[in-house]
């Protein structure tokens, strides 16, 4: 039986290298942009409108550090798995296992939240057209299954779709900005009347940092595409930095428009704030545009998440950190098809738990844990392989200031999560601690030791 099968007569199998910097931009921004259409406004709920703007820029600084650090390490360690592979080469196996889990969890949970948004949008669309009892479940499932199917069939079509719909969603924010007559206060925008003092004082500003991550969460996922992009060392820093600039602009526009139209108490709990903003403007064209754009943003995000989560899960499988079964690549489409398929029921089940805020907190916290890791990672990377000992595609300036800034901001964001979401924080930490103990005691024995280190680097200093 086995002899009839096609086997490794020729070269080993590998993923297709077909992507360019625009795809990287689309992967990064695509995942995040949905955050400007929903979710970012929870910062307003935690600290008021001004707190949200401060959080937007402070967390923007956090992510600028992330993008700088990540670009340097990724331009040198370019492999599917991204930060997971970095951790494996620089910190060690247990850290790598945890980073792999952060990635899979952050993206799968985010994908579930995105699919829920598509479902809710369909429901409110149906309500506008006079049908009030639409079941959201089929649309949630279709979103996940359709995007998984795209991902299964090949990365090029997947990310080209993302490029188109992400660009359209971004343009809709720009159109919205110009349609509120931004230069003339009081005509449409009412900042003077609507903006209040900080309702919780400065502690509210700190507390709002938690959801401030929603403005940018996922931009670091760009390096998951490292095995599929042409000249990764150049494309990934380019796509990531470009994406970061797009997001800073988008986040500021979003805040400006929304804070000028809605009282903060409403904004702080709205499910689709930008769609509500368009509704307030009273133009049905704008309303339709924001409806479509929100859907596009959610789909682009779910799409990028499936792409990133499956690459991370695949890499864990390939190194036997997770069952080796998931380390397979499709011989025709060259995608990690088993990982893609495996994550479909998981994402759907997360969406159906009905615990949206819990799922979002899990996603944010997994992201935050991986940024904390980046600080140790960067400092050890420069120490173990000083500049000049290996070739780096990109060297970020002012080391170690970005790493220290990042660590400080991470600590502030843990504290922000503690304010209001302390129980979730502890239960999520319990998950990672139990998973780590299990890895050390039961799982690591299946891992080949030296095979994990695949970079052609000299021996690290001090080891």
């Amino acid at each position, binding site marked *: 039986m086995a002899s009839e099968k096609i086997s490794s007569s020729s070269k080993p199998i590998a993923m297709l290298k077909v992507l360019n910097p625009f795809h990287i931009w689309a992967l990064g921004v695509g995942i995040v942009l949905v955050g400007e259409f929903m979710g970012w406004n929870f910062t307003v709920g935690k600290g008021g409108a001004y707190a949200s703007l401060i959080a937007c820029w402070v967390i923007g600084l956090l992510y600028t550090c992330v993008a700088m650090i990540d670009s340097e390490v990724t331009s040198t360690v370019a492999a599917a798995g991204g930060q997971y592979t970095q951790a494996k080469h620089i910190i060690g*196996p247990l850290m790598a296992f945890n980073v792999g*889990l952060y990635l899979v969890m952050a993206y799968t949970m985010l994908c579930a939240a995105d699919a829920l948004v598509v479902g809710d949008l369909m429901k409110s669309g149906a309500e506008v057209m006079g049908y009030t009892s639409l079941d959201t479940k089929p649309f949630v499932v279709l979103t996940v299954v359709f995007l998984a199917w795209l991902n299964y069939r090949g990365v090029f079509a997947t990310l080209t779709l993302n490029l188109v719909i992400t660009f359209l969603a971004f343009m809709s924010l720009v159109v919205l900005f110009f349609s509120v007559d931004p230069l003339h206060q009081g005509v449409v925008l009412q900042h003077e009347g609507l903006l209040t003092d900080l309702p919780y004082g400065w502690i509210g500003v700190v507390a709002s940092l938690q959801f401030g991550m929603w403005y940018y969460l996922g931009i670091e996922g760009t390096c998951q595409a490292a095995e599929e992009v042409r000249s990764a060392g150049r494309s990934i820093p380019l796509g990531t930095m470009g994406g970061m600039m797009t997001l800073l602009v988008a986040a500021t526009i979003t805040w400006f428009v929304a804070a000028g139209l809605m009282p903060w108490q409403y904004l702080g709990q709205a499910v689709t704030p930008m769609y509500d903003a368009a509704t307030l403007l009273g133009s049905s064209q704008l309303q339709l545009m924001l409806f479509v754009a929100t859907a596009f943003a959610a789909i682009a995000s779910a799409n990028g998440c499936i792409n990133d989560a499956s690459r991370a899960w695949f890499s864990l499988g390939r190194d036997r950190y997770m069952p080796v079964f998931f380390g397979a690549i499709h011989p025709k489409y060259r995608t990690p098809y088993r990982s893609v398929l495996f994550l479909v029921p998981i994402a759907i089940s997360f969406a159906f738990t009905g615990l949206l805020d819990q799922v979002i907190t899990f996603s944010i916290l997994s992201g935050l844990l991986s940024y904390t890791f980046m600080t140790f990672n960067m400092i050890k990377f420069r120490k173990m392989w000083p500049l000049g000992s290996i070739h780096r595609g990109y060297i970020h300036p002012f080391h170690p200031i970005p790493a220290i800034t990042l660590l400080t901001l991470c600590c502030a964001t843990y504290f922000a999560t503690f304010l209001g979401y302390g129980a979730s924080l502890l239960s999520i930490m319990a998950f990672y601690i139990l998973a780590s103990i299990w890895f050390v005691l039961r799982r690591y024995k299946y891992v080949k030791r030296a095979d994990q280190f695949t970079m052609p680097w000299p021996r690290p200093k001090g080891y």
Partner: protein
Amino acid sequence: MNKNYTPPNQGMFGQIFDTILVLVLVYSSLMLPLLFKAAAKAEDAAAAAATAVKATWESLGQNAVQQAQWIKLGYDPDKAASLINSRFDYTIDPVMLIITIVVVGGYFWFMLKVSDKEYREVIREKFDNK
């Protein structure tokens, strides 16, 4: 030089078991905070019942511009009151804060420590026993 470590191969059953185990852990940590929340919800409901009085825009502290936007959004004072009056409680419980700091700090300390030990073994195999 000592021999390189050769890992055992994991059977199909073991692979399925490990996958399910991780999933069970994830779902339990998603569900766990619900236990805390159920208790907090009951308290909230009691507090809300106690403060239920007829709300007006003035009693909610909304100025003319804010009122106009609330009305455009389809809210009357009663409906808006639940949004305006629900506030986060940012009083810090020092014991909980210390527990959280110890948990997060301890987690990273444990992880760096164990990772370093495992990493030294990887480097030894990779560069010493070619």
